[in-house]
């Protein structure tokens, strides 16, 4: 065997049923060259193993005697924030889920397809590999929720308190806020809710979860949080919010003009809203470094992401993509966040009007607007501008975005 090019990922499996562990062990035997796997029969043993030598990924059952999965994950989130925490459970006990809404990154239900489990572990590991800065990885790993614009949060609480509120009412509010959108999509796309397809629209998510569930999640479990003002002096939450909203609506408009499917249009809306979520994370959790980053942008006339790389070792596209990937949001959103500067690198490429391309275009074309000055507006991909589907419609798109 050749020497290991990179350190093998350490994966810890926790289940009170020994036969499940043995089955996993055999099924994953083929992964032993990539993963260093350990199997333990309970929460206390898992904690002990983690404390001896931390694991990159923890996959745990929910219902276990003594310490259940939620208790284990909550403890791990505090002690080992950078660990990827995945639930693999036999049935959706909503009570237990809501106890670890913040600490579990992803939820799988038993029986779980072997390939899905392998892919998920690999993908979440790879996401983390992009984040060279250990501190950033820890911070993103420990994020339970993202701040919401206080006015939006206020409006949501009021709307929820009204009897005649509909899912559409709530959806319209949630889809204006990054923090709420990303959280509710994380929830609804987890296997706990047994969904067979991926949801990218907050309205659909509310309709799917049901008013009562949403009400209890928001009011009792506090899955959303009204933000304190950001500590950075260079950017405000309102500005980030307004920018996301404008890009989301712009991206949707572009796809509508191009007669893309309704589904793609909605994906573009959500993807656009969330595309700079990395900025929000960095501004919120590293305000001092972010101030430095902006200083660097000014003093050396750098692009924002270059300055970010220099100060933080990561840029906002990587950080954002890490979070939405870790939280199991649909790939179209992860890719829009990661590749909104370079759509050609996305899976869909640039030869047809994808939501990623639309986000890139909307973001780039809004540079003329003063309100969006603080943000890095990517130079539009010249190859993209030459594509047939776009070239013929470019003027119409510009026109509609600037009115």
């Amino acid at each position, binding site marked *: 065997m050749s020497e290991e090019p990179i350190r093998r990922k350490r994966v810890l499996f926790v289940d009170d*049923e020994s*036969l*499940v562990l*043995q*089955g*996993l062990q*055999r*099924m994953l*035997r*083929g992964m032993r060259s990539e993963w260093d796997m350990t199997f333990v029969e309970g929460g206390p043993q898992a904690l002990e193993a983690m404390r001896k030598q931390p694991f990159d990924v923890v996959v745990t059952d929910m*219902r*276990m*005697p*003594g310490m*259940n999965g939620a208790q284990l994950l909550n403890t791990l989130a505090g002690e080992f924030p950078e660990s990827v925490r995945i639930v693999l*459970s*036999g*049935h*959706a*006990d909503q009570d237990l889920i809501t106890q670890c809404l913040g600490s579990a990154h992803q939820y799988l*239900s*038993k*029986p*779980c*397809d*072997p390939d899905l489990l392998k892919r998920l572990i690999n993908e979440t590991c790879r996401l983390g590999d992009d984040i060279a800065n250990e501190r950033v990885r820890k911070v993103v790993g420990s994020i339970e929720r993202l701040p919401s614009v206080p006015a939006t949060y206020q409006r949501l609480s009021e709307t929820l308190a009204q009897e005649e509120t509909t899912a559409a009412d709530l959806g319209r509010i949630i889809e204006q806020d990054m923090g709420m959108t990303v959280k509710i999509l994380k929830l609804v796309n987890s296997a706990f809710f047994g969904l067979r397809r991926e949801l990218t629209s907050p309205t659909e998510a509310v309709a799917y979860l049901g008013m009562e569930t949403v009400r209890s999640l928001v009011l009792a479990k506090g899955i959303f949080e009204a933000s304190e003002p950001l500590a950075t002096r260079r950017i405000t939450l309102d500005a980030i919010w307004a920018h996301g909203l404008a890009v989301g609506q712009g991206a949707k408009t572009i796809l509508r003009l191009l007669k893309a499917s309704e589904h793609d249009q909605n994906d573009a809306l959500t993807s656009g809203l969330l595309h700079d979520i990395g900025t929000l994370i960095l501004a919120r959790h590293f305000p001092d470094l972010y101030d430095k980053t902006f200083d660097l942008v000014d003093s050396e006339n750098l692009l924002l992401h270059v300055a970010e790389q220099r100060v933080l070792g990561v840029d906002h596209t990587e950080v954002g993509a890490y979070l939405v990937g870790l939280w199991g949001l649909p790939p179209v959103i992860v890719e829009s966040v990661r590749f909104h500067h370079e759509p050609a690198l996305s899976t869909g490429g640039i030869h047809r009007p994808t939501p990623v391309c639309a986000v890139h275009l909307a973001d780039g074309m809004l540079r003329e607007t003063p309100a969006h000055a603080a943000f890095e507006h990517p130079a539009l991909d010249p190859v993209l501008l030459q594509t047939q589907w776009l070239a013929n419609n470019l003027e119409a798109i510009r026109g509609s975005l600037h009115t």
Partner: protein
Amino acid sequence: MLRTPSLSAQVSQSILIVEDEPALSSLYERVLSRQGTVRCCASLETALEALHVHPCEVVLLDLGLPDSQGLEGLARIRRHAPEAAVVITTGASDENLALEALRNGAQDYLLKDRLDASTLVRAIRYALERKQTENKLHQVEELFLGVADNMVDLLSIIQTDGTRIYTSPSYCRLLGYSGEELSELSRKDLVYPDDLPGVLEALEGLFRDGISRRFEYRIRRRDGGYVPLESNAALILDVHAPNPKAVLIARDISARKAAEAERERMEVELRQAQKLESIGQLAAGIAHEINTPIQYIGDNTSFLREAFEALGRIVERHQALLDQCQGDRCPPEEVSAARRVLEEADLGYYLDEVPKALAQTLEGVNRVTRIVGAMKDFSHPGGDAKCWTDINRSIESTVTVCRNEWKYAADMELDLSPSLPWVPCYPAEFNQAILNLVINAVHAIEANQHPDKGIIRIGTRQVGETVEILVQDSGCGIPDVIRDRVFDPFFTTKPVGKGIGQGLSIVHAVIVDKLKGSIHLDSEVGKGTSFRLCLPLREV
């Protein structure tokens, strides 16, 4: 208001003499003056006037008056003074008329030509007594009719053969029949056919032993509907009456019945809700119990496929080697290729693990089979009929079905008597009762908040003509103050959302009400609780 008449004939009476012949009139007056106050009138009109001014107890009335001949005078006197006794005086030739007068309400008659003082006095006195008795009877009758006519309850008096001597008008008001219609309807026509045997039995019993009976039945209204009645029947005690009679007081109990039905419906609904709640809870637990083995069945099978492919490659390579060999000469490169395949194939691991994977897969299949079988047993698709039931198996199935509910909180110990006879039982409901007790035990153990698992023991044994089921837990126990209430519907100590207070009430309904068994509760706070259910082996 009823006036109580003077009961004594000795008291001074007021007597009115109506006689147009002055000689007779004064004669009567003289004779009767010692009996009381006497007034005399010579005509009917003056007599009526006098009665109007001053009532009297006795009227001595001549039937041949200038302004009135015959019975008309009597009729008018009686109309004016219904409470006065009337004695007729008439000639011998008119004795028939006198007899007619008696039938029309006169108390006595005197023939003028055979009249003497003592006869007159005696006649007046007797007439007075008779009239007073009659008045009394009349007042009692009025009282009775006043009560009977106005009562809301239904009053009837019947004879042994069931014929009604009297029915109160309330019957007609309640049922919508006219009096005649009702009188033509027999008991058979009126009483709901299914209720008739019960009514007959009660009344026959009443006439036999004289002990009052209370019974319920439905009675048909004129519009064809039925009214539920509750009837109290008592014998009318009258030593003189040749035929015994019974008085029935019945009451419309529609409202009560409706309330009972409503309560029953609510109880049924609640039980259904509790059942659904437990089914919902069980479904999640069963999903877990099934998904867990399915997970490792899938993982092992996926491993076995991989192993088989690896073994296939080895066999293939070795087959190729054998094909290349001639006699005992084998091409060295083929031998080393075969050896390399063997080395790379992780063969030792497969040889160790494949048998285990197969065994565990089969174990998983068995687990799923067992759970699915227990689910079938638990819900008992055999219907709601009472049937001979293997209580041990019921308990095992129930415990299996709800394993996910208790396995994190407690260890389960079953001590089921192998020689336990089958019991006449409603299996589905019995299972529900056992399930409720197990769930309660789990909650009681969880309430201890002890880090270690608790213990639940379920035992069965035969004690004489009963089968005993003992469900014990090491939970928090039931405080004395609430021990009497734990079987009440809606009583719960659990937080809102954790139970609707129907669990033990259902256990009670099944074991005591339906199966005629008994429940004995023994509990010590902090130590645990045991429920002893006793089921009769013989149908009660």
